[in-house]
Structure formats: C-alpha cells, structure tokens
C-alpha cells in the first residue's frame, strides 16, 4: 500500500525527522487559508500516488495566499497520469542549498534491509543509478540489530556530507529506519533531504510503501488507504480475498493460483489475444468465490470473453464444476466463457460443464485459442 507524501512526512515527523510546516487541503479555499497561516512563500503540491508530479506541473511555488488559491484551483482540476488530483499539500517554501537522497528498502537478494544515500538528491534514485552509480552509497542493515549509529555515520561519510551536518543526518537516518520498522514499510524514502540556508536538514518530500501483509498489526496505517486512488474492482476483489489486477485486454481470466493465473495471461497473448485482468481465486474455488470473481470480471465493460482455468487437486474438478454452475445461477453470463478443468476427476467436471453448453478445453493453449476466437466473434457461444 502506497502512502501519500503528506502521510509519509507525518510518520517521519513522529520519529523526530524535521519536515516543513504545512497541511493538506481538499479545496483551494482551504489551501489559501493554510498559506495565510504559514505566511510567506508556500509550495502547493498535488497529492496523488504516482511519480513525476513535478514534471506534470503538480508542484508549484506561490508567493502569496491569493496565488496559492489560484494555483491550488488549477492543480485540483488536474489529472496526473490518469489520476485526478483530490488533495494538495501546502508547505512553507524552503531555502534550498543542497539536495540529498536518503531511503531504506528491502533488498530481496541480500534478504535484509538496505539503506541508500546519495549526494544527488531531488531526482529519482533509479535515474542516479543509471547516470552516476558511483554517487550512490548502499549499506545493509542486520534485521536483528537495526541501523547502528556508526553505520549512519559511515553513510554520511560515504556521500561526502560536510561534517557539520553529520549529527543531524545520523538522527534522521536512524529516525527513517525506525519509521520503516514501525510501519512495516517496504520502502521509506526522503527525496530530497535538503540542507537549508540556515544550515539545517529538512525532509522536503517523503514516500512510503507499506507491506500489505503487515496491515493486520498496523490498524492506523490500514485506515490511511486512499480508496480514491485504486480501481473500484480492486477494492471489491480485496473484500472477497481475491487477488485482482486490471489490464488492458478483452479476455477476462479466472484462475486458481497466482503462477497459473500469470501463465494463463501469457498463453492468451501467445494465442494472439490480450488478457483483461489477472485474477487468482485461490484454492478451493467454491461457488461463492467463483460468483464474486465472475461479477468483478463482468463489471469490466471491455471484457468480450471469459477464460476459466482451474487445476483441481485436493478440490476435485467435479466439485469445482458444481461451484461454477451454482455461481452461474446467480450471475448470468453476458459474454462467452471458455472453461478448462484439469486434474482430479477432470472428465466428470468437463461433462457437467459441457451439459450447460460451456465450451471446454483440455490444454491451456487450446483454451486460449477458443477464448481469443470467442472474443473476436463477440457473441455468446
């Protein structure tokens, strides 16, 4: 789960990381009154969960409350990479002398957290990694020990930070690691961390991604999920314990198991079609889950055919077939559905579905071919 900049910075502030004074606004009038409170120049920043806000014109400087009103009006009417801007953060403007990057994330290969710092802040770290890899310092943290003081000092020295800023930098780095731990984050990043004209360090922008699997023990973070920022079908799927990702094609996929679901998408592409979604209905594949999944798939108007691919292991194919037939009593099919049942009792499962005029296939390649043909015809088989 991604957090907004304003949410991330508040969580950083709880770890005594200095952030600019400011607040989030839902309307331009609110943005103006925040600017009045803050006095002086402010920055109005679009709060959307995508990168590249600055380039898209979603971050602008305002010299007066009136200007803040005008800019907020414009930004709140924007869409950035397809996402409408619903909130703006109004922060007091900082006097920037230098920009640093500081982040912590999970290193899958090393199986431990890695702290990353660079004297080249303010741009995406992936960009720095491409153009100036030597400007990036990496430091692995023992997950049982946490980030130690000397390690944070090492990091400061590696990016050649002037010594007078070390104390502040070490506290911020350790605070950031604490925020990462306490939020079960998979990424916590300050970019840029600036050195101000007054010689202090300030976290100007923040980003956090929280491990969905840890939300059960982070109820306050779970409440921060911004439902406006995700497709309605994805929220709906989560309610039923289904894993759903919307894609651009026209063949809806319903599969048990994530690996098999990905493979099904791939085979549809090989057959000349395009998958409309990824959907894992999980083990068991009972009637209730099949019905919920079918409703979600059919709510996507671009779907012109459905491919159901289930491997029956411990749950036998005939049980799965009965589940499908029960689900179809509740959710009428508006497009053709090709089914493929493989595994235990597959013949019986196929026989049950064939009796209801659902085209069945034995191999995955054949199922994909049938689904692609059905989507092209666009009529119920």
């Amino acid at each position, binding site marked *: 789960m991604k957090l907004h900049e304003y949410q991330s910075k508040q969580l950083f502030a709880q770890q005594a990381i200095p952030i600019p004074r400011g607040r989030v606004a839902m309307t331009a009038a609110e943005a103006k009154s925040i600017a009045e409170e803050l006095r002086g120049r402010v920055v109005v920043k679009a709060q959307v969960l995508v990168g590249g806000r600055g380039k898209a014109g979603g971050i602008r400087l305002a010299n007066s409350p009136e200007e803040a009103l005008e800019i907020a009006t414009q930004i709140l009417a924007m869409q950035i990479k397809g996402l409408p801007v619903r909130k703006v953060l109004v922060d007091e403007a900082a006097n920037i002398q230098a920009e640093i990057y500081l982040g912590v994330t999970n290193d*899958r290969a090393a199986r431990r957290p890695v702290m990353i710092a660079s004297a080249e802040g303010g741009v995406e770290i992936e960009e720095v990694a491409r153009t100036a890899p030597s400007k990036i310092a990496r430091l692995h943290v023992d997950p049982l020990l946490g980030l130690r003081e000397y390690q944070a000092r090492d990091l400061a020295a590696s990016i050649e930070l002037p010594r007078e800023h070390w104390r502040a930098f070490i506290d911020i780095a350790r605070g950031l690691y604490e925020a990462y731990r306490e939020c079960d984050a998979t990424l916590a990043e300050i970019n840029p961390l600036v050195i101000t004209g007054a010689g202090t360090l300030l976290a100007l922008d923040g980003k956090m991604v929280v491990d969905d699997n840890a939300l059960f023990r982070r109820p306050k973070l779970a409440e921060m999920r911004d439902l406006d920022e995700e497709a309605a079908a994805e929220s709906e799927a989560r309610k039923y314990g289904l894993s759903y*990702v919307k894609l651009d094609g026209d063949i809806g996929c319903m599969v048990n*198991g994530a*690996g098999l679901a990905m493979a099904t998408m*791939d085979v*549809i592409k090989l057959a000349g079609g395009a998958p409309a979604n990824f959907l*894992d209905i999980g083990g068991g594949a009972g009637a209730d889950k099949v019905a919920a999944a079918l409703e979600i798939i059919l709510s996507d108007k671009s779907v012109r055919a459905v491919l159901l691919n289930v491997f029956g292991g411990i749950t036998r194919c005939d049980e799965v077939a009965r589940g499908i037939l029960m689900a179809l009593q509740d959710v009428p099919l508006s497009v053709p559905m090709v089914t493929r049942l493989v*595994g235990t009792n597959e013949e019986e499962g196929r026989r049950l579905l064939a009796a209801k005029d659902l085209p069945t296939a034995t191999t995955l390649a054949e199922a994909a071919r049938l689904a692609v043909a059905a989507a092209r015809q666009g009529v119920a088989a």
Partner: protein
Amino acid sequence: MSILIDKKTRLMVHGITGREGMFHASQMLEYGTKIVAGMTPGKGGEWVLDGKVPVFDTAKMAVEATGANCSVLFVPAKAAADSMLEAADAGVALIVCITEGVPVQDMMQVRSYLDQRGTRLVGPNCPGLLTPGECKVGIIPGHIASAGGVGVVSRSGTLTYEVLYALKARGLGVSTCVGIGGDPINGTSFVDALEMFEDDARTDSVVMIGEIGGSDEERAAEFISDRMSKPVVGFIAGRTAPPGKRMGHAGAIVEGGSGLAVDKIKALEGAGVKVAEHPDAIAELVAERGRKARRRVKR
C-alpha cells in the same frame, strides 16, 4: 534417494487442531508420511486423527517426546514468525511454512536467525514438499505425481501441480518436488534446490518454474552454467504482467525495471536451459531431453 524428505522424515504439524492443519495432516497421514506430533498451545495431551497423533503445547516438548526432525506450519500469518523460531529453537532441521501473508520484515528476521542456527526453511507461502511414494509435507496433492528421476522446484502452487500431472501423464516420475513459495524473502532459493538436485543420485533432470520479481532465477542461471551437469527445463510465468503491479504472490512484482520475465528467460537460455513457451510444453521438453540423454548413453 531424494532431497529434503523421505521415509525417515518424522513430522510435527504446527496448528494441527485448526481446520487447514487437520485436513492436510489427515491427507499427509493417508499418503504415508510419518506424523509423530501435532502442536497447538493449550491443546497438549489431546490425541487427534483417530487417536494416531499426540498433540503438544510446545515444539520443544514435541521434539523431546517424539524425535520430530521436520516441522510443517499451518498457523495464521501473524503467528508464523513465532512458530518458525520456536521450531528452530526446538531443534528440528527442516521447517516448511505453508502459511501465506507473513510480513516481509518478519521474514528478514526469521531468515537471519535460522541462518545463524543452520536450520533449513522452505517457504513461506508455498505448497511444501513431495517425494512421491515416500513422504509428503504440505499440501501438494499426492496422487498427481509418481516416483522417478525428475526434480521439480517452483515458486508457484497450482502451476506446479499442472506440471506434475503432465509429467505423470507422460510416464515421467518425480524424485522430489520443492515448492519454494511466492514471497519476496523465503528460506530455500532456486540455487539451494538445484544444488541438492545436482547432488542427488536419483534425480537425473530438473524442472524449474519461476516467475516475475526479484533475481533468484538469474542467480539460478549462473549456478546452472557454473556447476550443473544435469539438464534443466524452465518456465517463467508473467511475461504479460505490467510493471509495478503485484501479481497475486507478494514477490511477483516488476519494480524499477528489474524482475522482468524476459531477463530471466534470457539468463536461463544463456545457461543452456530449455525454457518452455507455455506450461503445456514443459513435460514435452523433459521427455525430449530424456530421449536425447538415452541416445547419448546408447552410443
């Protein structure tokens, strides 16, 4: 021979009194796995599965009383880290964690602790292990595979079952099937499993099923090219997966341009692995390699 589990495996089941734990314990027992103990705090002293399996309050008591050397976990995600650490402290050599949804920071701590103790972990978020005809630890349907010489290692569940089923249909048996799981941080990697298969006398070829996310497949390719003498057939799921989206498995995500299926396929092909275009072709490629190998032997 086989890898990780065989007839001598003495299994303890964490969460045996839960719905999932009880169901799969009965399936494992039916398959012939020696389940020597169950573990559920507060239920010590009970006997389950028609009085065949004693339940203990702690892993330590279970190991002391029964000599369990392997532990399988069917516990909720929030209890998984604790159960893995408890099993390791009780002294079992192999832990198989079926549980899905374990927080990744928990896994980093658990992995670090288990490494220090030299305890092997398979999973989490995995279907477990199957040595056909001998032992099943986890949830892989037992009847879909027969005993033989193909080693199978996979990040996926049902996709692996498909492959086992197709291998069996072609008369190809399996030495051991290892489900390493779909999480970003797990216990046993592809390289670990490949190394064990390379050293296993019964295994004559290997199927590895990977997917998008991380770089475990790339490291496997390096290992195969440097160290493996046995033929490997591969498959990588997720060629059509969009970047930045998690595809069901916590670990199946393309991030910052890394973890792409094409890169993994390229690396594996570079190491001499035959990579199947679709899952149906995997068993076919294994059969083909087997025929070639036999022809070489004849000459």
